[in-house]
């Protein structure tokens, strides 16, 4: 197996670890952490494809930079929402937050 496939294997495994964590946890902050794991797996994918398939271009590198930026913004907004919900409900389990349910 080539080096590229090995690193791709790591990134796939990291992604599905993130999926597992996202589906099993009921706590919003841990779900956010699982999402960060998945985003990191995607970043590794972009970098590996850029390095081993299109080494003369920089598209994958820029996608990675923009994904990191958007992940930072998303984490900040998510944590603002979570802290707000905690003030309102005194809990951050997703089962107990049901105001929007009809």
């Amino acid at each position, binding site marked *: 197996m080539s080096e*590229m*496939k090995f*690193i*791709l*294997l*790591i990134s*796939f*495994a*990291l992604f*599905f*670890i*993130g*999926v*597992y*964590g996202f*589906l*099993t*946890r*009921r*706590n919003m*902050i*841990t779900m*956010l*952490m*699982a999402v*960060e*794991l998945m985003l*990191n797996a995607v*970043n*590794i994918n972009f*970098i590996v494809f850029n*390095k*081993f*398939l*299109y*080494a*003369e271009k*920089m598209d994958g*590198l*820029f996608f990675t*930079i923009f994904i*990191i*930026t*958007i*992940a*930072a*913004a*998303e*984490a*900040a*907004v998510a*944590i*603002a929402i*979570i*802290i*707000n919900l*905690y*003030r*309102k409900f005194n809990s*951050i389990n997703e089962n107990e937050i049901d105001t929007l349910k009809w």
Partner: protein
Amino acid sequence: MILVFGVLTVASRKIFRAAIFLLFTLINVAALYFFLEYEFIAAVQIVVYVGGIVVLILFSLFLTHRVNSDLPHPSAMKMIVTFLAAFFAFGFVYTLLYWHEFAEAVPVGSAVPVRMIGKAMLNYGEGGFVLPFEVVSILLLAAMVGCIAIAFKTKLKEHKAS
């Protein structure tokens, strides 16, 4: 190493330990970028993820949890079903990867210099990235304003209630 710490992140029942394992996972991913000779991405990874997001997550944990509180165990049925789903999806993707032949180019020896990254980011010609750069900057501004708006609203309501 990445995988071990990733598994510990989603499997640890103490929430603070999960956050610290997430930190180690991110540092290991940065090490992988160094290994692939993308030093700029590795530096950005360390600064933004390790320095920013993990600290944010730790702060919010301190604000919303008691220290040493355990997470409730997810139900065994759900854990098994989710594990099987994730495992088979992984197997499927792995077989695809195994049978696919990539036309691997010869990797260029030298790393991408930061000067080239900066020039490409502000270039509006062929291979330039000025439009996504501006879009992302607008998005960051919107996210900041949104955070402030979310934080303000409850304060005003609490004020009125009291």
